[in-house]
């Protein structure tokens, strides 16, 4: 009982206090040291801007969140649809690995934002253009982790599968390779979602998208309007949504696999 109380204190109160301390210091520095809203908006100004952007008649924050999540969904869906089969084929079939590896290694180091001109030329000023940039950022971690996961399937699992009736590649891949590679694959998807979320901001700032809504898009709009309090609002919203996506994903994955993955040697 006593230890539980102590842990609550340590795990909730201390983080709470440290965040509160940062906010107080921020407020003091902004008001009394910097004294310039443009250079550093104070905490209270940011809160006020958040309320205006979220609930005010001219605020577009809800639409921006919806559109950015839509861009993100397009990009992630495409990268899963392309990345997982590619990774599986490269991890399982030696010849496909040899054939595709140089292509992947040439394209992979190109920063995703460098694709923006072509994204706009190919897809126009559409949601798909923004989705494409996210796709470029997200697809490689998925390919590489799926590949590694399938490469590292323990030989004894494959042999056990063979003597137990998996005589074809297709059944070995679905019944042995896939479940065995799941921990690696989910780790890859998690990384790719982080990268995809980062690419989103860049893609929208540089004009991919329909040009009206989007968290990155309007973060930039507010910068041009010199409304730095709203810029901070958008930065914080981007961060919070990024964390929420990560937590939801981890929660989902844990529910699916934690039973067998826990304490695995």
């Amino acid at each position, binding site marked *: 009982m006593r230890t539980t109380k102590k842990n609550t204190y340590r795990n909730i109160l201390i983080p709470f206090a440290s965040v509160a301390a940062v906010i107080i210091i921020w407020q003091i520095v902004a008001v009394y040291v910097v004294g310039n809203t443009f250079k550093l908006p104070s905490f209270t100004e940011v809160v006020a801007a958040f309320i205006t952007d979220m609930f005010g008649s001219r605020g577009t924050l809800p639409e921006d969140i919806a559109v950015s999540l839509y861009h993100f969904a397009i990009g992630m869906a495409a990268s899963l649809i392309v990345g997982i089969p590619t990774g599986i084929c490269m991890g399982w079939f030696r010849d496909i690995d040899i054939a595709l590896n140089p292509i992947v290694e040439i394209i992979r180091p190109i920063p995703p934002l460098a694709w923006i001109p072509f994204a706009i030329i190919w897809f126009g000023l559409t949601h798909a253009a923004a989705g494409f940039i996210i796709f470029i950022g997200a697809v490689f971690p998925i390919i590489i982790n799926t590949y590694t996961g399938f490469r590292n399937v323990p030989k*004894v699992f494959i*042999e056990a599968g063979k*003597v137990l009736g998996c005589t074809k590649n297709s059944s070995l891949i679905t019944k042995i390779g896939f479940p065995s590679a799941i921990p690696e694959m989910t780790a890859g998807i998690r990384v790719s979602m982080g990268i995809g979320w980062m690419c989103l901001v860049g893609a929208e700032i540089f004009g991919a998208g329909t040009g009206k809504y989007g968290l990155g898009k309007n973060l930039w709009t507010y910068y041009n309007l010199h409304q730095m309090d709203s810029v901070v609002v958008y930065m914080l919203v981007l961060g919070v949504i990024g964390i929420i996506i990560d937590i939801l994903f981890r929660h989902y994955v844990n529910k699916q*696999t934690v039973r067998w993955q826990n304490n695995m040697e």
Partner: protein
Amino acid sequence: MAVVSVQHVTKLFVRDEGEPTVALKDVNLEIEEKQFICIVGASGCGKTTLLRIIAGLETTTEGSILLNGSPVEGTDTDRGMVFQEYSLFPWKSVIDNIAFSLEMQGIPKAERREKAEKYLKIIHLEQFRDAYPHELSGGMRQRVAIARALANEPKVLLMDEPFGALDAQTRNVMQRELLEIWAETQKTIIFVTHSVDEAVFLADKIVILSPRPGKIEEVISVDLPRMRHRTAPKFAELRKHILESMEKSATIR
């Protein structure tokens, strides 16, 4: 007629450089139904290779394996295998591991679980039905691996040093249990081990392989009644004979 017939099996491992290694040279062996065969030999004598060839996990360079008179090619469900390493699928519970081969046959979930139940009972792990492999001890895992191999109802059960990773105490318990399982299921078992003690305790027939190149040194029928006592004079005598035979084959070369 023999269940398993090993006919003139030679196996070369070709490496990029140097002479190919002769793992097995002209091995012939007939295994009768319901027999318990142990293959013993020093490490590197090719005993595991021979077992893997019978399983279909390796090909022969020359010669063939006949199962009930017809040659085998590749793995099939008529030969079950228990590996030395822990080979249970960590993502499946005990009962679903046992039912895996039934799953591969396309039997519906409820039905295959019911069938797997029988083998769960044989290995006395009913209370671990829904546990995952990481929750089991080494001995339990190998028992589940045996049940998983048996659930397929193979004609022959191949075992590659299945108790090699277990401590001596657990190992003795497992050997006794295996004999009970064998008596209950009436399977033909081919069991590879480097432990002479284990072989004398378990086998109807002990095949001694000599190393480099691997060939059959001697085949010994063991007619001691079961359960055998490790401390009995006849047991010790047999063990001594096999050890000497292995030593001789190792020193000649």
